[in-house]
């Protein structure tokens, strides 16, 4: 058990506890969604009343490499029975990475009330809470309308290149130390998806997991301030977070923007699968330098 006071965070309204979800999952104004790479974990058992979103097929454009279009997001929301007034609660396996990706897209398309379940699927299971294998009946066609995309939340390649050249933004590499150094080209056990290993020159290595406790919940505000501030990422200038495909960096984006309250934080979803395959892009190799270097 960790002694974390969620109310201390800059935007505590973006997090809910497992108990809150247990108390509200049947509320018609609340839509709980389990998000992961695919729906295999969901199919094995999920929070009662939750539906599933698969990152691979439902939260990315399956033809172009992109996030959903406004129309695609509206369709997803309508099919989920989500109204513009609904409270959208997201959780998932893989430490809430893909839930954070869905949170990021929901914010890009202007959904006001989005929350992550602190600790995700792992905490729900570990607490021995009720599990269902039934897919709930959903009343679709809510007339959901998304806003124009808020692209201030997203970093594109030219912005990252400029940040690398002129240090206009802090670049935060949230991958593992071995991915950062170039020792491995993908997380252990996963297929290599880039031509070169290493990191964007000037990026600080702050693996996503340092922001989380062993039970999957987020660390306290003070711990997070020390973690990122200790690496010079204190909100005094814009921040761009990246990883391999943008899902782990969604987790860090959430921490920086909503728990620490930094104003200008972007998720670079192109991440290393873009930068690490670019022709002519500079790459650094080697372990992270100590803070301040």
């Amino acid at each position: 058990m960790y002694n974390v006071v969620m109310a201390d965070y800059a935007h505590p309204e973006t997090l809910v506890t497992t108990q809150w979800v247990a108390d509200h999952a049947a509320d018609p104004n609340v839509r709980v969604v389990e998000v992961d790479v695919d729906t295999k974990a969901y199919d094995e058992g999920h929070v009662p009343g939750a539906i599933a979103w698969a990152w691979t097929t439902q939260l990315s454009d399956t033809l172009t490499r992109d996030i959903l279009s406004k129309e695609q997001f509206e369709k997803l929301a309508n099919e989920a029975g989500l109204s513009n007034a609904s409270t959208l609660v997201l959780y998932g396996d893989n430490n809430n990475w893909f839930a954070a990706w869905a949170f990021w897209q929901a914010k890009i398309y202007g959904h006001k009330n989005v929350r992550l379940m602190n600790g995700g699927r792992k905490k729900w299971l570990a607490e021995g809470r009720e599990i269902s294998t039934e897919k709930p009946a959903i009343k679709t066609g809510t007339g959901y309308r998304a806003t124009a995309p808020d692209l201030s939340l997203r970093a594109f390649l030219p912005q990252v290149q400029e940040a690398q050249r002129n240090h206009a933004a802090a670049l935060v590499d949230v991958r593992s130390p071995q991915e950062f150094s170039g020792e491995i080209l993908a997380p252990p056990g996963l297929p290599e998806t880039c031509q070169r290993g290493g990191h964007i020159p000037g990026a600080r290595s702050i693996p996503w997991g340092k922001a989380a406790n062993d039970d999957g919940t987020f660390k306290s505000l003070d711990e997070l301030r020390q973690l990122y501030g200790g690496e010079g990422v204190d909100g005094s200038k814009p921040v761009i977070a990246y990883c391999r495909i943008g899902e782990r960096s969604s987790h860090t984006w959430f921490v920086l923007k909503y728990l620490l309250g930094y104003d200008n934080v972007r998720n670079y979803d192109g991440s290393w699968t873009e930068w690490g395959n670019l022709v002519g892009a500079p790459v650094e190799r080697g372990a992270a330098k100590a803070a301040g270097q």
Partner: protein
Amino acid sequence: MRAEDFSERQLELEGWPVNVSSWRLGETWHAKADNVSPGAALARITAASKEEAEANAIARAKELLGRTRRHVV
């Protein structure tokens, strides 16, 4: 139904730290293996016993981790 008997342990496979977690849903045991850093799921297995589910998850994770190339930096 509830998840019961959730447990988690860490071991090393092919030189990489791995988390193995398991739990029971009704009569079925579920096991998952993930690479600790970063924490991506490598295997999800169901079986009739905890031992079988964990052993199969470990075997699959070991197979995948064995393919990971380490590059000289």
